[in-house]
């Protein structure tokens, strides 16, 4: 499904601020894989997701989705295959537009946009049902501006928007990190429901090791722009947080250095 081969990216090349963000990433995802991604500060987790989404061009390597080479496509073209939720709840929605307008924008992800009316009456009942399933009462506020919603509500809405039209790949970049624990839990539950229901292929960065172990069928650990540990199936289910920390020290020769992750274990 997703095939990443030897992808490299260096920021600020040939300057004093040179940073090798990705050092040859190889990753293959099967249809329906739900992969959690963990790693220390600056390990390249977000960069990897941004490279898949096409936020910056890669220096070398190849990214394929369903045998289609998207390595050099701009971000807006890749959006056809990819649904995304960002860490910052402000980033995923247009604050000055109505909830239903935001959903209509997302419903047309990757399609040509013409002079047809931006939101059809027939869509509204579909949006109503989808919002109802979130269980946040948003279905009765469809004409409210998104700017009126809380961070958690916006993040849940962004998640819904990303999956309104089934994406081939769902990218979640620490999408619960900016939320309070209770809201984060709720959004995470919604995430699991949606992924399961649509059988989505998903990459989810998280700073919470317990979540990383409990959620999904596979876990990868990154360090210094490489994938240093990749585990799935039964072996993953039996993991403990301590195992992960030990694995990290073995593979990197360093102590785990993600403050938030240490605190959250």
């Amino acid at each position, binding site marked *: 499904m997703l095939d990443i081969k030897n992808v490299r990216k260096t920021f600020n090349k040939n300057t004093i601020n040179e940073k090798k963000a990705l050092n040859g990433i190889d990753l293959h995802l099967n249809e329906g894989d739900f992969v959690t991604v963990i790693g220390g500060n600056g390990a390249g987790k977000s960069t990897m997701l941004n490279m898949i989404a096409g936020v910056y061009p890669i220096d070398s390597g190849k990214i394929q989705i369903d045998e289609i080479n998207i390595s050099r496509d701009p971000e807006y073209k890749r959006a056809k295959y990819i649904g995304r939720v960002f860490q910052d709840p402000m980033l995923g929605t*247009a604050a000055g537009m109505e909830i239903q307008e935001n959903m209509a924008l997302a419903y047309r992800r990757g399609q040509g946009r013409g002079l047809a009316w931006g939101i059809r009456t027939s869509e509204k009942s579909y949006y109503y049902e989808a919002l109802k399933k979130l269980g946040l009462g948003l279905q009765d506020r469809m004409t409210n501006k998104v700017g009126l919603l809380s961070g958690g509500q916006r993040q849940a809405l962004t998640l819904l928007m990303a999956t309104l039209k089934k994406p081939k790949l769902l990218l979640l970049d620490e999408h619960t990190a900016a939320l309070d624990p209770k809201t984060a839990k709720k959004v995470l539950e919604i995430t699991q429901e949606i992924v399961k229901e649509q059988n989505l292929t998903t990459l989810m960065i998280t700073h919470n090791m317990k979540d990383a172990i409990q959620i999904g069928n596979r876990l990868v650990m990154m360090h210094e722009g490489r994938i240093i540990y990749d585990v799935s199936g039964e072996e993953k289910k039996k993991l403990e947080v301590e195992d992960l920390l030990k694995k990290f020290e073995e593979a990197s020769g360093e102590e785990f250095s993600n403050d938030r992750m240490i605190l959250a274990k």
Partner: protein
Amino acid sequence: MSGLLVSLQDAVVQGVLWGIMVLGVYITYKLLDIADLTVDGSFAMGGCVCAVMILNFHVDPWVSLGVAAAAGMAAGAVTGLLHTIFEIPAILAGILTQIGLWSINLRIMGGKSNVPLLKTDTIMSKFIAVTGLSKQAAAMIIGIGIAIVMISFLYWFFGTEIGSAMRATGNNQAMIRAQGVNTNWTKLLALTISNGLVGLSGGLVCQSQKYADIGMGTGAIVIGLAAIVIGDVLMGKLRSFASKLISAVVGSVIYFVIRAMVLRMGMDANDMKLLSAAIVAVALCVPVMMNKWRIKKSYTEGGE
């Protein structure tokens, strides 16, 4: 007293005709959050093109208006390309186009800085010939008619899929790119449509005042921003998109009425630009100062 009435009527007519330009500024400034300085040049360009079309090429005044709008669109597209493909900051891209247009506009008018339309037909004179209305009434009806058509067009357009994507571009570029929209394209389109309206307005003003002048667009962007600010103050409570568009035109009318009144009170016409700039500056400063004052006032040393 009747003198005042006439100058107020004149002011309302001017306000409506310039209001079309304000609609253009509204698109870039309010919807896309770009202060587009092309406007000064594209407004004059609309006027120059319109005058030359009518006078030298004997084109129908209505068709000339269309050409003026098309010329404005071309100017907007140049700014759009400089800003999107070549990533020049929007303000600078607008200034470059505006400065370049000064020379182009002079070329269009054959090196003259002023082209009078004294004996030729205009849309106003044609309309008067058909209806027998007074000059002001004719100009007002045409102006309001075109304003209604343009507001309806914009209301429809920004409700379409493309229009929604353009509004979202002004809101949150990262979001709309993630939904598969090329934001370079939406920005280019917005600048093009906006300057098309500005060029159209330039053509209308040219035909109503019966001349085109190389300096007729100078300060247009500030007039546009002032009109938007005034409209916002008067009608900001109304939330619907149609009322926002209407408020831009109403703001323009109020601006020209204020202008006529202060000129009648004896203010030097040359000081008008300073007044316009002051209106915009104050309108932009007040919310910032209010916010700072609020933060300062809400501080307490001991908490609750």
